[in-house]
């Protein structure tokens, strides 16, 4: 009997608590930066595409919902010719982000992707690529990797000496 009354009392008290539900969509909940929502492709600090089309995100994807094709610009910089994510299959596990060696692919705190038509959940590169660095600032893969691309010659990457003169006899 007492327990019954206690329960009713506690329930009654909830009427005076701060409300947990928010009036979405007028009011939005706080999502931490590392919340795994919509996937974006970011750019490096110089504004170039970060994605180098290495295929690791696609390989890591447990539902195989990423498909891309690598290509190169005339200077040897590699980028995806197309990049498709089928969000109707995506489980937002974030493996792609973990696999990415260039911080290109990132999951951002945005989940408002509902569609009436499932076909609209297939995102192309145009839909994915943003004009910013996303969560990870300052990293530029080509500044580290030893590939020469436009504007960065051999030996100009991090911790690199200028190309050796193979005709030199000096020790």
């Amino acid at each position: 009997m007492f327990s019954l009354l206690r329960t009713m009392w506690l329930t009654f008290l909830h009427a005076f608590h701060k409300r947990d539900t928010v009036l979405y969509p007028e009011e939005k909940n706080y999502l931490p930066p590392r919340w795994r929502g919509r996937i974006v492709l970011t750019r490096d600090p110089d504004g170039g595409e970060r994605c180098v089309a290495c295929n690791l995100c696609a390989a890591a994807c447990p539902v195989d919902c990423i498909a891309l094709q690598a290509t190169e610009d005339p200077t040897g910089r590699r980028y995806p010719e197309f990049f498709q994510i089928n969000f109707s299959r995506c489980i937002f596990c974030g493996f792609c982000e973990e696999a990415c060696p260039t911080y290109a692919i990132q999951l951002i705190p945005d989940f408002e992707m509902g569609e009436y038509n499932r076909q609209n959940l297939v995102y192309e590169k145009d839909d994915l690529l943003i004009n910013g660095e996303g969560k990870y600032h300052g990293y530029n893969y080509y500044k580290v990797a030893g590939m020469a691309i436009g504007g960065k010659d051999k030996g100009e990457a991090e911790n690199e000496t200028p190309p050796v003169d193979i005709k030199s006899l000096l020790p």
Partner: protein
Amino acid sequence: MEEVAPKVTIFIDGQPFEVKPGKNLLEACLSLGEDLPYFCWHPAMGSVGACRQCAVKVFKDENDTVGRLIMSCMEPVRDGLRLSIQNPQAKDFRSNIIGWLMTNHPHDCAVCDEGGSCHLQDMTVMTGHNYRKYTFEKRTYRNQYLGPFLNHEMNRCIQCYRCVRYYKDYAGGKDLDVFAAHNHLYFGRHEDGMLESEFSGNLAEVCPTGVFTDKTLKEHYTRKWDLTTAPSVCQHCSLGCNTIAGERYGTLRNITTRFNGEVNGYFLCDRGRFGYEFVNSASRVRKPLVRSKLPESTSKSIALEEAAKMIRNGRVIGIGSPRASMESNFALKTLVGDEHFYQGVSEPDHDLVEFNLEVLQQTEAHILSLKEVERCDAVFILGEDLTNTAPMLDLAVRQSVRQQPMLEDVPKAGFPMWQDAAVRELIQDKKGPLFIASFQPTKLDEIATETFNATPAEIARLGFIVASIIAGEEITVHDVSEQTQRLAKQIADTLLSAQKPAVISGTHGGRESIIKAAANIGNALKAKGKDVGIMLTAPECNSIGLDMLGGHRLESAFDAIGNGYADTVIILENDLYRRASAAQVNKFFDKCKHVIVLDSLHNKTTERADVLFAAGTYAESDGTLVNNEGRAQRFYQVYPTTEDMQESWRWLIQLGDQVQHQHMRGWEHFDDLLPAMVVAHPNLIGIESITPPAEFRIAGQKIPRATHRFSGRTAMNAVNNVSEPKPAEDPDSALSFTMEGYRGQAPSSIIPFYWSPGWNSVQAINKYQLEVGGPLRGGDPGARLIKPTLQSRSTHFNEAPEHFQPLDRHLFLVPLYHTFGTEELSVHTKGILEKSPEPYVMLNSHDAQEMNLAEGDTLAFKIEEQVYQLPVKTGSFIARGAAGLPIGLPGLPFAALPAWGILNREISWKKQPQPIS
């Protein structure tokens, strides 16, 4: 002969194992399935002990607990040897070594084409070197342009020396080397430029990391794990090298080596590796066409109905093709009836291939496989420019010249054959005997003992004399110069003193008499008790197979239509303008009431088609090819095609169904054709069992064409339709098109890719072999259809030709071949077209001088009715009165060579108009 020595016992980490003696520890460990990292060692190239990666601990006896570190690739197997792979010190050593090798590695796996099939990645993971300790600066290099086939990225190099050991020592290349010193070592050319070797593509597989990578793959780059692959057979020459063809997003992406211990081993030539681009060509026939209908309104069923109407109402003949599979040719032969089936090959090829086959069936000499050629210790080549006609045979001959010095000197020196550096140091430039008789100098001349450049008749005469000397008979060839006689004596004596002599000839010499001479030499050596082998090349990938199926000559097909015996023709994957003169073919087509063509690429013949069916290439078909030694090998469809494009045999079966052909009743799938083919052609027995049937399952599962890490399959088609379609099924084979299926090793004839846990690169082949470098588990795939029979009788040919006599105002034109350019399909690859020469005619420099022609001037001549006007090249080795005409180059009209060409004085003497400056 390899002696069968008793096995010895070695102890690996305390466990006893039985191993073959004579091997090194690394080979033994790998053969036992152990994971031991290595770089510089390669099963085809032996050990040099340069990379220090394969270190193991070896103990004196069971009481020794300290042991010593040794390089397992340099240590022979001994009975009772105790070693430890897992010893902490050995593991630590290996991990440190890789740490040092990686100090300058450029941190670019993500953009490296090797990534995912990289031996360096695999070995780094295997040793457990996870984190970089070296924090100082990295050395960098500039790259070189190496031609259209290979990409160069020197920063990735780990200085294992495999590339130069392969390119220079194994493949005989001259223009790749190691430069500079100490930690500046540079592997490349002395300057930017195309790699000269026809075998440069193998560098992409030999290099354990991404210094040399496939440039054609880069155009449409795909990681190994994303490829859908199937076992295939190269279609670009008669040798039938085994390949793995990889597809992604509906286009063929690359060709890699499929190991076959009997045929190509670990390597491929560049024509085979890079000649695949025709599959993706814009000039592919992608849907059936009916001339009287708009392409949009033509569907598969309409085209079939139209063709069936033509067949029902007409008198039909069929023209087969040496580049179509056995199944397709057989289906056509059945559809039109045996007496109406014609082999679509040129006049000379038809006779030569038929004669080739006859010799192979009757010769007493052993029919060599490509691998066996490597083991021969004296080689005589008659009339073949192997580098250009059968490239991989060139590579095999390059190994054979090392045999004699190796067999003579190395056992005396007392170290094993796999000690590559020591063996090469010991034998230096010593070469075993190799004699080449050809029209003009060949690339192999540099390693030849003696060469003989002459016309086909003179080559045949030389061969006949050699055979007579070997047999100890009187020489029946008249009027022989002393020089030729001396050469013949030298060749005969050398072949007689060899243990395993080989005679190589084939159809590219253009004369039966050359093959006759080769057969005589083989028989004579056999009669002297020699273990002699013979190898005859053929013009195309299925020339021998087509001939085994039988069929009339093409000339008769022209007559049949010309005389009105028939009015409708079905042409199977064949461009007739490459088989006979344009005038003849035009006349033929003008006479035909209906022309039905099945082909994969648009060409001049498809232009004449009333109904054109879109035939699948080897990447879209299942089929069997019979190579030059009579080995039947199956190739598998790589990826599913649209309804509108299918195998030629399937089109023909469906046509048979439309016309309710009684012999084709119940035919539907690949496996329905094989038993019928064997019944109709008992000489093909064995062809039905070279691969497991379509119902074959392991643990109830098919063999997957895609790797278990195949990515993107719920996204790649999502743009078109987000609902994924049911995966395509393959009713013709035991392979599935998806990643689902049995994960273990497939039977040797249907291995779609090489992969083993921890071994992502091509080096995973080790895990598929009975012993490292040996045959695949379950035996090397393919089956010889030509078997030595007890009835085989020695045929001796007598008719040596007379001397070649130059004719005034005539040139005797002999065919010249080019690795890049001669073959019809491979020239669709951009890089191969770039490497193929412009049409020319090769004259003796004295003749040219007499005719007042300088290099580059135009010479006009006529072969039958065809007029040629070609720039002149001069050489001092081509016989006087003879000239070389390249065969099959794009844009060069057909000529049945060798043939007499009539010089057109008017044009040849006229000076070219000089530009007025």
